[in-house]
């Protein structure tokens, strides 16, 4: 996930469900969803039908369906796509008006085709589900992609917490600090060399 996606000023978001609910739903992910044998494309299609409501069938079709099929054929993507479906299917979450307004079939397709590859580049589905910090990052990422923020958080707080848990942000910080640390080490080494040379020169004068 790129931090700059929501970087700078806090994006306009709508207060959604509490973060704890989203995280708990992720923690409850059944192992079946992570099973590579599950046909993820079908799961996405079924979930989209569910989100469309009113007994709709086959709402994902055309190029969207083709792209979902293509992604779901890749095992790491499939497991994460399954997890995302598991998350948005939650009746308790969908009871939240803001969440149900945001979680539309096109939004699900957007999640699967945009967010899932990003998540897959950072961790495996199992890691996203089982590591506490990763769960929070995944929950915030999904909410953010739906244009929501956790209930009870101001846009600024939500943005701040996102920066604290975002792997991409941490990566950027680590890169910068590593660069500075290397420079400092280089300077220290040069200084030490210079001191050693001076000491040697002084010694040689005796």
């Amino acid at each position: 996930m790129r931090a700059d996606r929501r970087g700078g000023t806090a994006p306009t978001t709508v207060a959604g469900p509490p973060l704890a609910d989203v995280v708990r739903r992720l923690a409850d992910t059944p192992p079946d969803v992570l099973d590579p044998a599950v046909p993820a494309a079908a799961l996405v299609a079924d979930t989209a039908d569910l989100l469309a409501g009113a007994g709709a069938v086959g709402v994902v079709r055309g190029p969207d369906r083709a792209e979902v099929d293509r992604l779901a054929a890749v095992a790491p993507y499939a497991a994460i796509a399954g997890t995302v479906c598991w998350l948005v299917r939650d009746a308790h979450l969908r009871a939240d008006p803001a969440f149900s307004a945001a979680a539309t079939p096109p939004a699900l397709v957007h999640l699967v085709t945009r967010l899932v590859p990003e998540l897959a580049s950072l961790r495996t589905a199992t890691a996203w589900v089982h590591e506490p910090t990763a769960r929070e990052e995944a929950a915030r990422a999904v909410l953010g992609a739906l244009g929501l923020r956790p209930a009870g958080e101001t846009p600024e707080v939500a943005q701040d917490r996102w920066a604290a848990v975002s792997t991409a942000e941490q990566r950027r910080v680590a890169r910068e600090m590593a660069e500075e640390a290397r420079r400092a080490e280089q300077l220290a080494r040069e200084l030490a060399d210079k001191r050693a040379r001076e000491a040697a020169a002084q010694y040689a004068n005796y």
Partner: protein
Amino acid sequence: MSGPVAPGTDPYAALRARWHAAWPDALAAWGRFTRLHAPSLHGPGEAPEGVGSFAWFSTTRVSVHVDLADVVARGIEDHAVAVLAHEVGHHVLSPGDLTTSALLVARTRAGLVDLDHLAPLTANLWSDLLINDRLQRRAGLDLAGLWRALGPPTSLVMQAVLRADEILWGLGRGELTAGALPVAEREAALVARLVRAYADDPVGGAAGFASLLRTLLASDAERATAGLDALRGAVCGQDEVPGSVPGGLATDPRAVAPVRHPALDPRVVGGLGLDDDAESEDDATGGADAADAGGQSLAPADYDATLRLLGLTTDAASSARRWYREHAAPLLVPFPVREQPRATEPLLGAHETWDVGDDLAEVDWTGSLLRSSVVVPGYTTVRRTVDDDAGDEPDRVPVDLDLYLDSSGSMPDPGRRVAPIALAGAVLALSALRAGARVQATTWSGPDQVAGTDGFTRDEDRVLDAVVAHFGGSTSFPRPLLERTHLGDPATGAPPTRTRPCHVAVISDDGVVSMFDDAVRVGWARRETTELVAPHESVAARAVVAAGGGGTLVLDTGEAVADRVREIAVGYRVHAVSTQDDLVAFARAFARELWGADDAAPALPEGARRAR
């Protein structure tokens, strides 16, 4: 708890009772089986000087202390469980014992490069962070509430540390940090990762933590004393018993592991999938404070600095003694023991001086008090010797050691740098003492620069003092002393001071030729006017024959010089020792020559064989 308080007059009685009642909960935060004796709750004016915080711990006394007056002043009376559980954490998680505490200080000192005086503070700050995170996240204690009660930080370092806590505990910005102070956001983010990465390895993360906070500490230190004092008040104090020894510190390789900035540490940022992980893996800087000889353990000077920072010593010589004692321990060699016919009938003999280091039970108190009413151990104390009638069974008598250590300017100062040659001396002396022998250790340099035990002794400290002493002057072997010890004083006709068979060992470099300058004229050797004697008639050669226990020259030279010395040193075995590896070889050779090739192998310590 502490200090006599008349009943009914203690204004803190109620608070004391509340805090004592919280103690079982504080212990339970670390598991059902944690046991520690009750905390010392100090009243006003009872806290020792220089602790600097409202709570402190001592790994040597294994105790927890809280200054209740300070607790009231800071308004944290209601956080008893959090404060006490935190202090228990110093005994359970980090540092836990004195050696780990010393390792933490050695590591933070290395990470801070030039801010030595802040190393103990940084080490405790690091321990605090690990403990607080564990308590907040796993034990469910409200450490965040304690920090809120303590008020916003006033130092840059605490600001960064509390920001890290906010990140770790999922708190919003400004819940623990101060709005007025700038936040070192990137440092805080890395501290948070570091705490999780090294949650169960305080020593491993300490140097990285120090190097990460170094610039912030420096800017706090620059802001007059306000920043640092504020920091001290927020970090746990530590109060150790002076003179305690952190066992194993001198030989622990973790103390000199390369300092790695957390941003370059794969354990901290490895999970982020940075492209240059592989590079940072090899990017061990080593530099800053790595010890000299091989870099496998702290140098004596660093060891001394660490002990000083913990308030354990103020004496460089005692630090050096501990360092060489610890390093010599795995290399000790079997010292020669002579077999003599055993008596069938013990006969009461005369009194002889009981020396410090002899078994206390052997003191003849009646005899000692008859000699002097003032008891001065090693001088007026005597013990009864028991003479033996010659019998058939053999008795084992250890061979004494007469050790001469060269401390001329060409020898390294053992107190500063790792000196394999001094280590060889320590190995010989400690081996002899372990076998029950007595040792005369003499440090020599120029003509009048002679110091040592002046006679045979069993006092380990005095012997090691001579081993680590350093004059740094010219080179002139104290041949008169050697002569007095083994051949008797030619001037007064006094008998030799040696009473038992004795091994003569000299630790030196090419300056050892001054020992034989009555037989050879080498370089600067004096006595150009006197007539030379044959090598086997030199004082040194006659002394080693009279000593009856053989002689060894341990030289910090190359093999070529050692060969030259072998030609003139009649009666002595010559060993060249210039590195730690040579030292192990020397220990093997020494044992082999005295015990025979086959017997030596099993007698060698495990460590010596591994090191080869």
